[in-house]
């Protein structure tokens, strides 16, 4: 009798704790949407040109910057991290080198992003002379993104049962063929989910980009060597520096739009993962 009561209280207690995290998410999302959704969804806002001094500016170049930046960053970091993950999960034999690589990756992922920003400024913007542009930002974010992407890819590769590898090798497939035709395809849902989730992080990143991409533009950037202003950076800039009288509206609308983009990306990630798993008959 007593045990069941304790159990019930404990269950209720943990339910409350679970609900708190859900509640916090809802409060944040609700607050931001309440303030900005009606602005964000106005075509004149998300398809409009930004204004430097007047009110009524839009954020289209910023949205394009964010998407462009995400694509460029993934183009750089995905091959690198996937390659490193394949090495760690499939080839390395777990010796000192492997531990050292993991240690470096973990250290890299715990560096504050502003440090990456300053590094990007010193190397890509100044030393290499690329200036404030998308490509400087993409390289900086690729460094930031590399360890997380690598670890998530490594985890997906490792979750592929050993029996698949054995089956492939026992059929006379080389290690490389096994990786390419069995291991990577089987871990694709996980790799894709990890990649798409990292798009969300790229879109939300600001500190690493303040000194590398630029903070305000009026034209849509087409050339990757052009100055850009990803939405998250622009929100910070608008809130703290901008001269437009309606800066509050722009910040609220921008935040709501950014949240929408990240939300869509996360939903897409979940959907792709599920879709692949179902197609492979894994669930």
């Amino acid at each position, binding site marked *: 009798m007593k045990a069941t009561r304790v159990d019930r209280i404990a269950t209720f207690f943990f339910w409350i704790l679970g609900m708190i995290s859900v509640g916090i998410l809802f409060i944040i999302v609700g607050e931001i949407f309440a303030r900005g959704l009606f602005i964000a969804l106005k075509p004149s806002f998300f398809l409009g040109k930004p204004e430097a001094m007047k009110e009524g500016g839009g954020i289209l170049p910023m949205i394009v910057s964010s998407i462009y930046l995400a694509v460029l960053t993934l183009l750089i970091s995905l091959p690198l991290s996937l390659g490193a993950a394949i090495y760690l999960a499939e080839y390395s034999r777990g010796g000192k080198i492997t531990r050292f690589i993991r240690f470096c990756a973990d250290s890299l992922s715990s560096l504050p992003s502003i440090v990456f920003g300053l590094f990007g400024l010193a190397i890509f913007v100044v030393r290499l002379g690329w200036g404030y542009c998308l490509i400087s930002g993409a390289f900086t974010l690729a460094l930031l993104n590399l360890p997380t992407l690598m670890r998530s890819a490594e985890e997906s590769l490792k979750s592929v049962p050993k029996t698949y590898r054995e*089956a492939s090798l026992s059929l006379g497939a080389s290690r490389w063929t096994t990786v390419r035709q069995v291991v990577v395809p089987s871990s694709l849902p996980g790799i894709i989910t990890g990649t798409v989730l990292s798009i969300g992080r790229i879109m939300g990143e600001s500190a690493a980009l303040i000194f590398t991409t630029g903070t305000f533009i009026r034209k849509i950037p087409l050339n990757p060597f052009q100055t850009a202003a990803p939405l998250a950076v622009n929100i910070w800039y608008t809130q703290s520096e901008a001269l437009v009288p309606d800066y509050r509206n722009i910040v609220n609308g921008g935040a709501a739009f950014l949240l929408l983009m990240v939300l869509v990306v996360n939903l897409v990630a979940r959907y792709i993962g599920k879709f692949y798993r179902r197609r492979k008959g894994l669930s």
Partner: protein
Amino acid sequence: MKSNLEVENLIVEKDKEVGKEMAKLGNKIEIRDLSMYYDSFKVLENITMSIPCRSIVALIGPSGCGKSSLLRCINRMNDLIPNSKVEGEILLDGENIYNPSCEVIELRRRVGMVFQKPNPFPKSVYDNVSFGPQVMGIDNKKEMDEIVEASLKKAALWDEVKDKLRTSALSLSGGQQQRLCIARALAVQPEVILFDEPCSALDPVATQKIEDLLIELKENYTIVIVTHNMQQAARISDITAFLLMEVQGEPGRLIEYSDTNKIFTNPSDYRTERYITGRFG
């Protein structure tokens, strides 16, 4: 790309070669003085046995005696385990597979393997069977269809899956999955097939089917099977090897190796007798 006829000719030629080897040696595989280590731990010691062409050899013994390790030496699957080491030699058609010049990939093509738990790839039935040939470089659709059909027929699975070649292999039953794995192994035209307790995850009906299949396959392939089930060894094998690790921590040794009939009716070693009468293990 080789045409069908050429491939067939190749097979015929290979059969002739195998025939010659048989006449010369009589044995497909000869294991000589084989010892195996994981790190510094000796798993197997001084194993010597000859496996005749087109026969079924069963490896029996209590858990941990090194049966599976020995089996995995024959196609060098143990290479995958870091710090494993092998001493002695294993001759396949008279050639030592542990020679540095031995191509492991080609070896594994010639010596196929079926595992304890059915392990089809998360691909379609067709893609599972075509995986091996495709890796070998066969890319003619018609030829591949023929290989897939022939392999599935040999594995006694064709009638059950011919209408669902494109569905996921994971939707098949356990017994069907295991026969699919056998078909997959057959598709690369191996000479030897190693079975590592292939029925331990299957129900009696599925087990019966696999056993019938093994006896059929014996006509064309040399088969080595590890089994926990002594009745199974008695039912299907021609020769039985009894391995035993007498003291925990010591390596497994080959206690007795002779005709299955003899092992199960009149074993020469008292330990074999005690094991098969169920007094330990």
